[in-house]
């Protein structure tokens, strides 16, 4: 068949399809139900025509025109409209804790990478107080001392509420940024995630050790006990997700490295959804509750312990009965 004949016969089909696509892409006036029922049939027809024009070596102009229609049709047909709220709730209640349990090898590994250096540095600084300066520079140590000096403490809310908002913004941008970097740098053969976990562990251990040494324990630990359950756990999960990426590259198993990476990444990113949620909660507690001095230290320790128990119970128990796919 000559191209001219072919065009004469089928022109109306691609005209119709292109009009339908224009309507769908504009998103303002949704096409009628009849038009929509025709979509799949028209799309298949266009795919067929595109194949024919290629096969018969019709002009590249026609081939490319139909090719564009195929792409646009494909984009419309395979769009996924996901109901966000139900998915979000399901993720919170069952998917996230299930995922954490499923990936617990990585989680335990990352836990060790964060807490062992913390403990080590804490004990080292208690034994040799000057070692704090190997991890934190002297200016920052002074800052720490100022922040947690009981002499600077005021009764009631330690800060004005506007300052709380300032700190909330800071914790959001800083802490979630740190988690994102801990995760993403794991792509480089897990090196980045491991480094950040150990580094944060050393840093936290040194700060805790130093403040214990100068006997600011009460102000320090009552401040961190509230949010650290969420914050530290989230950092551990972010590190574990990053290590999973890097491990897929190092040990891809029966797949190509690229396939292994893609599979690992699809799981790891879902862990990161949970990390974001946990860090928002942590930032909220840290900004609005941890700095509040109305509560007695004892009450704070109890509340903090309850939060730790909550986090642990959540990951151990939530979503156990839900055996849905």
């Amino acid at each position: 068949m000559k191209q001219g004949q072919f065009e004469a016969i089928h022109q109306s089909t691609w005209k119709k399809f292109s009009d339908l696509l224009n309507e769908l892409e504009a998103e303002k006036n949704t096409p009628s139900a009849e038009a929509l029922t025709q979509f799949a049939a028209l799309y298949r027809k266009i795919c067929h025509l595109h194949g024919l024009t290629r096969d018969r070596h019709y002009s590249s102009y026609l081939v490319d025109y139909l090719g564009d229609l195929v792409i646009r049709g494909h984009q419309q047909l395979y769009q996924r409209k996901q109901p966000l709220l139900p998915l979000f709730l399901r993720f919170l209640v069952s998917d996230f804790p299930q995922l954490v349990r499923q990936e617990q090898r990585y989680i335990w590994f990352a836990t060790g990478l964060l807490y062992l250096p913390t403990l080590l540095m804490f004990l080292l600084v208690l034994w040799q107080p000057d070692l704090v300066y190997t991890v934190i520079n002297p200016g920052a140590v002074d800052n720490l001392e100022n922040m947690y000096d009981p002499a600077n403490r005021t009764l009631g809310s330690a800060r004005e509420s506007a300052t709380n908002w300032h700190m909330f913004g800071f914790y959001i941008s800083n802490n979630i940024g740190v988690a994102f970097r801990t995760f993403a740098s794991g792509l480089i053969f897990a090196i980045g995630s491991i480094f950040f976990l150990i580094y944060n562990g050393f840093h936290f251990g040194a700060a805790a050790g130093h403040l214990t040494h100068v006997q600011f324990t009460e102000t320090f630990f009552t401040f961190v006990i509230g949010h650290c359950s969420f914050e530290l756990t989230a950092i551990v999960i972010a590190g574990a997700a990053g290590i999973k990426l890097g491990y897929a590259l190092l040990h891809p198993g029966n797949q190509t490295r690229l396939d292994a990476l893609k599979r690992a990444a699809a799981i790891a990113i879902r862990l990161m959804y949970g990390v974001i949620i946990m860090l928002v909660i942590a930032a909220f507690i840290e900004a609005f509750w941890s700095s509040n001095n109305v509560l007695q230290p004892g009450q704070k320790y109890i509340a903090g312990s309850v939060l730790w128990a909550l986090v642990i119970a959540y990951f151990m128990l939530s979503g156990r009965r839900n055996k849905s796919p």
Partner: protein
Amino acid sequence: MSGYTVDRQWVILLPICQASFYKNLPLAQACLSRACVISDTGSPDLRLDTRLSLETPEGATLPLIPAGIGARIMAFVVDFLIRSGISLIFFLSFALMGYFGTGMFLIILFLLEWFYPVYFEVWRHGVTPGKKSLGLRVINDDGTPITFGPSLLRNLLRVADFLPFMYLFGVVTSVVNPQFKRLGDLAAGTLVVYDAKPLTMANFEVKGRRNVPADFTTDEQRALLMFAERSNRLTPERQQELASILAPLLHTHDPVVAIKQMANTMVGRQ
């Protein structure tokens, strides 16, 4: 940036045409081996550009054109400027509000840094303003529209692409990768492609039609058409120089006019 793909296609096409016309087999084979890929039919095929064919469940092949590093860097710069502009506006308006304003500003800065691309990719069909200005779009590498997970992943992994400084890993990866994917694209299974340009009726400044030789493949026809389309950006001498390579095949004294007449035939104009 479209000039880049055209140039490249033409440059690769020329030696192939040349070699096959003059029956210079070693050179033709050398060109073939350089541009050889297994096409969707499973047979070796000449690949003249970075065009990618994806097979869909319908048995159709999606012709996608991955976007190169230059266009993507420019899109990034445009987005970066827009983001900076927005931050500046917020900075000025929140500066009056004391600590509360600073807190809000930090949150907005955070959202702009990490979620600006995600928002546009998921809710604006893979097109950020910067990508729109260059006619680019992000899609999943199976051709479907990008969803939240892959979008967040490719944007978080920007950090890895940035290492060790100034996006060095990302640039190296996407130059080496045949589909110009950076690390984040590789892990998330996403692809930046050129949006289909609206097909315009180009004016080739030449009257008349001429049949395209029957043995020209679709890719070769495409190269002819692209030559005609961009000829207004070339000097007449350069047009002559390029077109004269085809002269032995066309049996005409003026190959430039001949190619443009073929282009007329292809787009169906008189």
